[in-house]
């Protein structure tokens, strides 16, 4: 990936390693989140899946893309709770956003499973 020529701060151009893992913890600790699915569905990343089968590394669960200083975060979650699933999705987005402060973020959360 090419770095943007006019990156405001060097630190904003590449997601620091470990952020995805931190965010996974953040998402999993929101009450009602029962599972986190690979951010990229398997059928969209056959090459990635094959690679990960070879290297033994799991597919990334939280998707991160840095665009001109704004971090785009993607998470696909399962919700199992008597509390409303939409509220859980909002809390997940909010928790991600607060964890990344003061960095700007665009957060996308998909609920792909509701109930046990």
């Amino acid at each position, binding site marked *: 990936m090419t770095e943007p020529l006019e990156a405001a701060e060097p630190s904003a151009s590449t997601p620091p390693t470990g952020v995805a893992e931190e965010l996974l913890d953040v998402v999993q600790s929101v009450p009602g989140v029962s599972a986190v*699915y690979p951010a990229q*569905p*398997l*059928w969209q990343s056959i090459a990635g899946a094959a690679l990960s089968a070879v290297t033994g590394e799991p597919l990334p669960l939280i998707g991160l893309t840095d665009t001109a200083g704004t971090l785009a975060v993607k998470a696909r979650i399962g*919700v199992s709770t*008597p509390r*409303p*699933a*939409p509220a859980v*999705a*909002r809390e997940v*987005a*909010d928790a991600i*956003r607060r964890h990344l402060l003061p960095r*700007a*973020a*665009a*957060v*996308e*959360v*998909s*609920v*792909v*499973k*509701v*109930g*046990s």
Partner: protein
Amino acid sequence: MNYPRDTLECGHSLAELSAYLDTGQIADPAHLDSCPECQAGLASLRKLSALGSELLSSDVADAGSGSDDWMQSILDNLRLELRPGRSIPLQSVHPDDTLWETEGSISALIRSVVDAHPGTAAGKCRLHGDVTTPGTLITVEVEIAVVYGHSMEERADQLREELARTLATHTELAIEAINITVTDVLEEQP
């Protein structure tokens, strides 16, 4: 040997009789009833077919049960990907957040509510209407199977109420109607 040639003395062939067994069609059906040779040929082919069924049963028995390990390991290899269906938008607090529920997650939720009722199982379920535009009126169609002997109308009413409650909790859809169709009546298992 009973059949030195494929053609019988009456002029019919075993190939014709073989096709007759599968399709029920032959040029002169009346002949079959009166011709001992054709009768013998048909009997021989039917006996073979019966033996074929025995071989099939024996092979299926040798193949093992579908709940055995071999099938489980095949199923474990499949890694069936969830079918997402349409993306249903949810309201977000922050303008830069985008939140969704997949249509697949909602139909699975509907099935789990139906299945949790004793004596009912869900079939196909559909969300009619543009779920991708908030506020659009949505009609839910659910097919169910009911175990014989349970009052279907009462059951459908209870289910409709429970589905309405569940969908109001877990979605932001504007549900206009929930239509439940009983497509199967199941025999109670002993």
